[in-house]
């Protein structure tokens, strides 16, 4: 105990009980930006859940968001594809841009936005339909294919990219909810990538999975980075370290610090980050 305290004092230049004026580290990028977020505030009714967050998400990077539970990671993530619109009391100010286009502009089609910014949820939520129908759903509703052959092709490719093809190629007609938890989550990923989104949002995608399924999904995320920008919320520091290039640390609705993942974990700029990654609270 004693030793840890000494280390903390040495490593943290700022006090642990004061939040920084501005986000520390390197929240903004110079080029190759996929999503710009500027001065984003989110309110649930009168209660503010996100305070003045400015952050860039780079193209083809995996950005991890970490922080104690209730700090607003999910809330912020759900702003990026306007999933928060479904909550009546939720109000958002500031600006969020996808490829320079304000996604909260009234002229924006929310369906198109969500097709461009896909989402994978905490609890695997495949439709209670067949494996095939789960993956084919997106291409169908968006009219991406002309015939069954094209659709079959998309379904196969998506399942392959999600690393699920080998396991389900003989069970395409089985109901998706009958798969194991890890398979279900990969099915959800296949479903998301079937419409080729630019960004994939993942909200603690492995929290309901066992360690082996988690390892498979993590590997998958690393491969998906070649084609997609990925924002992943996780409560596991190891996972953030394994899969992400940059990591953002949230605390009580504020973005405390963003930096290259290895740098944030080895040399955090703020005492809170330090305290969190060393497991002093969580």
């Amino acid at each position, binding site marked *: 105990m004693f030793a840890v305290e000494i280390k903390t004092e040495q490593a943290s230049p700022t006090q642990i009980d004061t939040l920084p004026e501005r986000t520390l580290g390197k929240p903004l990028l110079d080029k190759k930006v996929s999503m710009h977020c500027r001065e984003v505030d989110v309110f649930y009714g009168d209660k503010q859940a996100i305070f003045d967050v400015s952050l860039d998400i780079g193209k083809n990077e995996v950005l991890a968001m970490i922080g104690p539970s209730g700090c607003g990671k999910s809330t912020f993530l759900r702003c990026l594809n306007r*999933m928060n619109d479904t909550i009546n009391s939720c109000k958002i100010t500031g600006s969020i841009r996808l490829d320079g286009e304000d996604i909260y502009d009234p002229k924006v089609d929310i369906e198109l936005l969500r097709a461009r910014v896909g989402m994978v*949820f905490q609890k695997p939520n495949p439709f209670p339909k067949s494996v095939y129908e789960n993956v084919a759903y997106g291409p169908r509703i968006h009219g991406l294919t002309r015939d069954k052959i094209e659709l079959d092709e998309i379904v196969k490719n998506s399942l392959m990219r999600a690393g699920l093809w080998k396991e389900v190629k003989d069970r395409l007609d089985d109901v998706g909810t009958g798969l194991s938890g890890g398979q279900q989550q990969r099915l959800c990923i296949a479903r998301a990538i079937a419409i080729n989104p630019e960004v994939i949002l993942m909200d603690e995608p492995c929290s309901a999975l066992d360690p082996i399924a988690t390892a498979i999904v993590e590997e998958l995320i690393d491969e998906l980075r070649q084609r997609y920008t990925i924002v992943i919320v996780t409560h596991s520091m190891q996972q953030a370290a394994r899969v992400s290039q940059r990591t953002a640390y949230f605390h009580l609705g504020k973005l405390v610090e963003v930096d290259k993942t290895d740098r944030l974990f080895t040399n955090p700029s703020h005492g809170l980050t330090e305290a969190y990654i060393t497991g002093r609270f969580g």
Partner: protein
Amino acid sequence: MSDRIKATVKRRQVREAIEQSLIRRRKRNRRFRMLGLGAVILGMLFLGIMFSSIISKGYSAFALTDIQLEIYFDPEVIDPQGGRNPDVLASAAYGKLVKAALRKEYPEVKKRKEKRKLYRLVSTGAIQQLRDLVLSDPAIIGSRKKLWLIADDDVDQYYKHGENQSRLKGQQLAWVAQLRAKDALKTSFNTNFFTAGDSREPELAGIRGAVVGSFFVIMITLGLSLPLGVAAAIYLEEFSPRNHWTDFVEININNLAAVPSIVFGLLGLAVYINFFELPRSAPLVGGLVLTLMTLPTIIIASRAALKSVPPSIREAALGMGASKMQMVFHHVLPLAMPGMLTGTIIGLAQALGETAPLLMIGMVAFIVDIPGSILDPATVLPVQIYLWADSPERAFTERTSAAILVLLAFLVLMNLVAIWLRRKFEKRW
């Protein structure tokens, strides 16, 4: 005392306290279980009493007594001209043939008054039987045939239940005893009960008219209340904004579900019959009235079914870029369907058993003809039961119970369908 000993003592005390409380808990547990079991048994007992009383009263209505008589198809009576014209054959006085046969059977009966009593042993339905025979085969005219003719309900009651249950008296009893001794009485399955409309004569009365009326009414109710109720529920649950206005609507729907059904009947009388001038006693009006009554049930059940669809499915659909409409129709509705259908069938079962509002719109008239369309005057099963229950004849009493059995059979069938639908469409997630 050292801490360790203190802790041991403390632990022992805790253990004893738990053991004490466990005894009490077990007792309470057992008492509650007995109470529950008792309630179930009591419920089943009442159900059993109800069913056995209805069945024991009603089963005999499914049998009908026939009298064997030798009928002479007298050409003089049926077709004196010998033209064999179907119109003539249809309008002939077949009653005379029956009377002649009875007189021949009992030559000792001479007085007019006694003869009239004698004629009363055979149902007027025998006339129809003879007419049908002649029309289907005119060659029968001139021949003698032993035929089974429908007996009057008093004979029927006598034969099925004995002297005490019948209104036969004196001579009539002797005549019937004579028939019985000759094996000229028998019971057969009462097809009349299922193929005929209502009648003043119990032995000729059937539920066909009421069943057809009920069918029309329920079909109209289903056709209107299912789409309207489901649409209203989807709108309220999925699309309408939450504000005072929708709160108000919601409260009113819940109130509507609790309104006594007779009020809907009065409303139907005022609106459909007096204002829109739709025909009285028509299944159309009955269906419209029962739609009003069933709608709230369906809306409430459908909303509950929609609410029970997990939000994760909605999020999954929206997250894929589905519109709200697509989310509802592709994912939420299929999952909510079993619940909606169950609610609908429960509502319809209620409507099927409903009497009071239909009395208000005149579906209580005595109607012999079987309705051919939704605008013909008709009655429905529960109203038929009500009408028969009101009749003094013992034969109508047993038909009342038999009609109740048929109604119960339909209700059980509907509930089975509801269960089957739920099983079939239920999906896990």
